[in-house]
């Protein structure tokens, strides 16, 4: 039976979780055994339950959940908190078996799983179940307390699944601190067709979850560890890059919301690309972000403004002083503003949250202010991966994005030390302070703009109650004049003109 199956193309059953299907190249092996292993609290039960419920709810595949450790009712209640359709338990699509080992049970001599499997077989026949979860199978096996017997029973279980063409998901706990599979159950991965290791660790005080497909018999799979979160709707896996095809590039240009900046960029930025704005504190990055989303709304495009550690109402109020009026767009629903708290969750959870918002709102333009906030939580490497995936996600959806990034210090190339996103950004605008003649003026320059011509001038950035603009460049002796000096020069030119007449 096994030989016959391996000769065919491996059929898979979708997990119902996009990222999980990505890393397993399609889902679980149909009619095979999948092992989910990880430390206590790593999310094994939730993942197994989610796959089971999703298969029943979305694909009409009935399933059985056998709970060896937790009370089955509690497991079901847990599922309901994610908004899953646990009502199916009333019907024929889902069945939970309370198989908690009684604490007062006495052992005397040999026993095996024949009875349980016979019972499950009858139940599976009755409801036409195709999928079966054995949650915390190690608890049951531990009852045997004999490695040889445990191995024998696990093979019995595996053979039973194969014989009845049932797709099995087994979860087992591994002890904390062990790098891989507990040596006690070292044979398990060999027996399973697909083995996934779930882990949870703390990086810079932030809990970070990750999973890795250790093996997948007869199927390609993503070898790397990928991050995942348990969000309000269950497990979300941060799928790897490059799985999705790149979208067609747009020829259309999108306004930045600042007319003169568009001119410097030869018409704006390409739709579906991203622009990074770097600068030190108070440089005006958020204001440019506000102008960008306002311009989008004025074009009747949905926009999303994500800010970190700043109240949306304050942002709207501050922008209003510069004639950037977001309030009507918020009211019409064209604009959605979301203020996130950096330290509340890991960068990975921020990413999943942003991804959810994008999926819900379908914005054509997104501003993230500042993206560098992500670098403060969950470790630099994780944050970088998140920033990258956010950029790829938007690129794949054809969303035009404006990111800001806070610079520490004055060297613009220091940006590369925080998130390294400048290397993958399509356009890069730098705002700096120019100190000249006892004045501090804002200066804007375009460091790069992929696939497009752009001005290489350094221009003074002017914020006023009538809006944002860039001053005409005036140079004297190779220096760009700004502030009072520019003003004098401008007036001087005008005076000269006046005298000439």
């Amino acid at each position, binding site marked *: 039976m096994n030989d016959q199956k391996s000769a065919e193309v491996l059929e898979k059953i979708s997990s119902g979780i996009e990222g999980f299907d990505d890393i397993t190249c399609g889902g679980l092996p149909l009619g095979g055994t999948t092992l989910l292993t990880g430390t206590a609290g790593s999310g094994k039960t939730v993942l197994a339950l989610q796959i089971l419920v999703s298969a029943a709810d979305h694909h009409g595949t009935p399933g059985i959940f056998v709970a060896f450790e937790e009370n089955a009712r509690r497991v079901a209640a847990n599922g309901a908190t994610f908004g899953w359709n646990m009502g199916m338990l009333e019907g024929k699509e889902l069945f939970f*078996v309370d198989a908690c080992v009684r604490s007062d049970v006495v*052992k005397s*001599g040999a026993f*095996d799983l024949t009875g349980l499997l*016979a019972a499950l077989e009858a139940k599976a026949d009755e409801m036409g179940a195709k999928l079966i979860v054995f949650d915390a199978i190690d608890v049951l096996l531990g009852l045997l307390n004999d490695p040889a017997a445990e191995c024998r029973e696990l093979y019995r279980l595996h053979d039973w699944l194969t014989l009845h063409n049932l797709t099995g998901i087994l979860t087992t706990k591994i002890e904390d601190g062990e790098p891989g599979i507990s040596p006690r159950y070292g044979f398990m991965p060999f027996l399973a067709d697909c083995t996934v290791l779930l882990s949870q660790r703390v990086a810079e005080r932030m809990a970070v979850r990750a999973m890795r497909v250790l093996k997948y018999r007869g199927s390609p799979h993503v070898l790397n560890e990928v991050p995942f979160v348990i969000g309000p709707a269950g497990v979300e896996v941060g799928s790897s890059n490059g799985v999705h095809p790149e979208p067609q590039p747009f020829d259309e240009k999108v306004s930045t919301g600042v007319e003169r900046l568009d001119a410097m960029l030869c018409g704006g930025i390409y739709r579906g690309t991203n622009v990074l704005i770097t600068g030190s504190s108070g440089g005006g990055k958020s204001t440019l972000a506000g102008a960008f989303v306002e311009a989008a709304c004025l074009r009747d495009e949905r926009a999303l403004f994500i800010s970190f550690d700043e109240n949306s109402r304050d942002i709207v109020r501050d922008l209003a002083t510069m004639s950037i009026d977001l309030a009507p767009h918020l009211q019409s629903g064209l604009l959605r503003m979301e203020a996130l708290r950096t330290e509340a969750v890991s960068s990975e959870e921020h990413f999943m949250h942003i991804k959810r918002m994008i999926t819900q709102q379908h914005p054509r333009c997104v501003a993230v202010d500042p993206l560098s906030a992500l670098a403060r939580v969950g470790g630099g490497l994780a944050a970088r991966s998140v920033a990258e995936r956010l950029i790829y996600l938007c690129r794949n959806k054809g969303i035009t994005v404006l990111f800001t990034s806070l610079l520490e210090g004055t060297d613009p190339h220091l940006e590369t030390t925080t998130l390294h996103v400048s290397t993958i950004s399509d356009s890069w605008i730098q705002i700096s302070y120019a100190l000249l003649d006892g004045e501090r003026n804002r200066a804007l320059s375009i460091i790069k703009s992929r696939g497009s011509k752009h001005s290489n001038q350094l221009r003074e950035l002017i914020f006023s109650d009538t809006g944002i603009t860039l001053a005409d460049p005036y140079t004297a002796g190779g220096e760009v004049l700004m502030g009072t000096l520019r003003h004098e020069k401008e007036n001087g030119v005008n005076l000269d003109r006046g005298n000439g007449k």
Partner: protein
Amino acid sequence: MSNAPSAGDEPKGAYVFRLYLAGGAPNSVRAFANLYAICRKHFPGSHRIEVIDVLKEPLRALGEAILVTPTVVKLSPLPEQQIIGDLSEEEEVLRALGLPQKTNR
């Protein structure tokens, strides 16, 4: 449990067991023999054994949370006690039933 076998056949204070077996599996056959022997020795004339073949009544085992076979449940006298295995370790069985064990040596 409410679905205990109806009393009446056996005298008051009798031992009532329910034994879950998996057909003629060797450990099931041994469990039956061992339980029968223990009963004859320790509760002569005041015991009853109800045998349930899980292969014939599979859904019943699910409802009664029977995970492995063989399993014996002492229904009476209370409290209920579950013993798993072929009952080959008599000492353990007697301890679980609250009976004086044979002195070692």
